């Protein structure tokens, strides 16, 4: 991907200055407009692969974009497993690089799950993302890529996301009896399961 590193510093900027109007009405005019370069913006990803998926799944493919040379799809939760299955079987994405989640507590669909895929045949990388509510399950892809086994366990361990169809969904890095999911944004950095620490380590506090 030689063009990837170049980026697009002269990319067309969207007219995104407008929504700042209500706050700026009381403030002095033009509060440092050139101070913050908005940076690159996602461009539509036009290629046979996303186009074929879009014609197949319609609006369930919410977005197909490229950001700094990296392609990604945003997909409805209901079809994400089918999309991943098709990507593996028909588009040679045979290597599940990583699976993780990002927590946005202010959004209604709190969790964004990200699958990073790579195809050896195409030498191409892409991401598939889906958003779910807190407590909603996500489909497991262990049957598609055994590599996802521990990744899903880690995702459950850290975020509390349940993957339906996972053969053995348990905590992996934290102890089994631990209470809480540390990578959620509402879990403090110094927070611990004091009850577990006291019962199992025989100390007052882990801090």
């Amino acid at each position, binding site marked *: *991907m030689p063009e990837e*590193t170049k*980026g697009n*510093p002269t990319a067309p900027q969207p007219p995104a200055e407008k929504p700042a109007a209500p706050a700026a009405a009381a403030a002095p005019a033009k509060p440092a407009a050139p101070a*913050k*370069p*908005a*940076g*690159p913006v*996602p461009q539509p990803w036009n290629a046979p692969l996303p186009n074929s998926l879009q014609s197949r799944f319609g609006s369930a493919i919410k977005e197909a974009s490229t*950001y*700094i040379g*990296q392609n990604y799809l945003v997909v409805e939760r209901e079809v994400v497993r089918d999309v991943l299955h098709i990507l593996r079987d028909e588009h040679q994405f*045979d*290597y*599940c*690089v*990583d699976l*993780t989640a*990002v*927590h946005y507590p202010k959004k209604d669909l709190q969790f964004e799950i*990200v699958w*990073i895929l790579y195809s*050896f045949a195409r*030498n191409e*990388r892409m*991401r598939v993302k889906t958003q779910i509510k807190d407590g909603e399950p996500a489909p497991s892809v262990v049957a598609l*890529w*055994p*590599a996802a*086994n*521990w*990744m899903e366990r*880690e995702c459950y361990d*850290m975020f509390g996301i349940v993957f339906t169809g996972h053969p053995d969904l348990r905590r*992996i*890095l*934290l*102890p089994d009896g631990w209470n809480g999911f*540390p*990578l959620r944004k509402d*879990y403090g*950095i110094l927070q611990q399961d004091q009850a577990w620490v006291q019962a199992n380590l025989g100390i007052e506090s882990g801090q």
Partner: protein
Amino acid sequence: MTQPASTSPNTGDRTFLDSTEMVLNMGPQHPSTHGVLRVILKLDGEKVLGTECVIGYLHRGVEKIAENRTYAMFTPYVDRMDYVASVSNGLGYCLAIEKLLNTEAPLRAQYIRVIMTELNRLASHMVWLGTHALDIGAMTPLFYTFRDREEILKIFEKYCGARLTTHAFRIGGCIYEAYEGMEQEILKYCDFLEPKIDEYEQLLTTNRIWLERTKGVGVINGEDCIALGVTGPVLRASGVKWDLRKAQPYSSYEKFDFEIPTGPNGDTYDRYMVRIAEMRQSVRIIRQAVAGLPEGPIMAKIPKVLKPPVGEVYVSIEAPKGELGYFVVSDGTTQPYRVRVRPPSFVNLQALDKMVRGQLVADVVAVIGTLDIVLGEVDR
């Protein structure tokens, strides 16, 4: 792991008269697990029926820490994941943030990064070779490799002041210029090391005990490797010619001439041969990088306070253990919104069960060694 506890003797592929399974606990305090890894082995006599890894003893919450530090403040933390190859960790993180900032390190910095990373790959493979051979019962290679690795650590110390957790690079380039005489010293080291690699090979490559302990042990084929996400020398020893330095070059790797060694059988011996060949290729890359080291700045023009634009990137590099990736989400503030590390050791360790099933207990030790895991990276 779901083998039924049968009481009838000699059923299926069971080999012992008394067919009750035995569960053997290995670790977490066990010298051959290279840290604190616990493996629960289900055995039929000497034969392994299944394994279960218990990990997390070294979990420090690195990804959580990242969300509470600025971009620059987090760089030293990544060195503590794979502490045997800390330069690679730092390189991957810096590249990810540079990508997020849509900038690139200057050419001279890229070359210095290549030199340091390849030296670190040599050091990492030397630690692997010494400890792996020690696990199998050959004690001498440990002293040889650690003696030679020491010289690399001295170069690191001269370059950046630290030997192990180097923090050698910064976002945007390098902070340290090459010290006086560094090029000559590194070239001298290359001349010194090449015969030493022959020496390691003399000790092991045709050693009958080594062959008996490694040939046909822990076999995994290329398809299984890909399905399990295994990367690095383990994948290449199974015949898949894939190296991120070639497939998706970063930091000027496309300018260097080197080969990707592969192995035909995917056993422990092939993985040994692949890593030895990789060491020679690393020396080759270092020589080219030192010879072609360009003049110029070593730091890109980046702001003092890093505020990458809103967005997310995934950037990965070929670390000594495999694909090391960073998935970074920025919300436009000075702190990353989320940093996800894709550690090669964590994913590669999943293949342990596949590789040791049906083998002997003693081979578990060989296979853990050949996977070249670092528990600091598995647990993060």
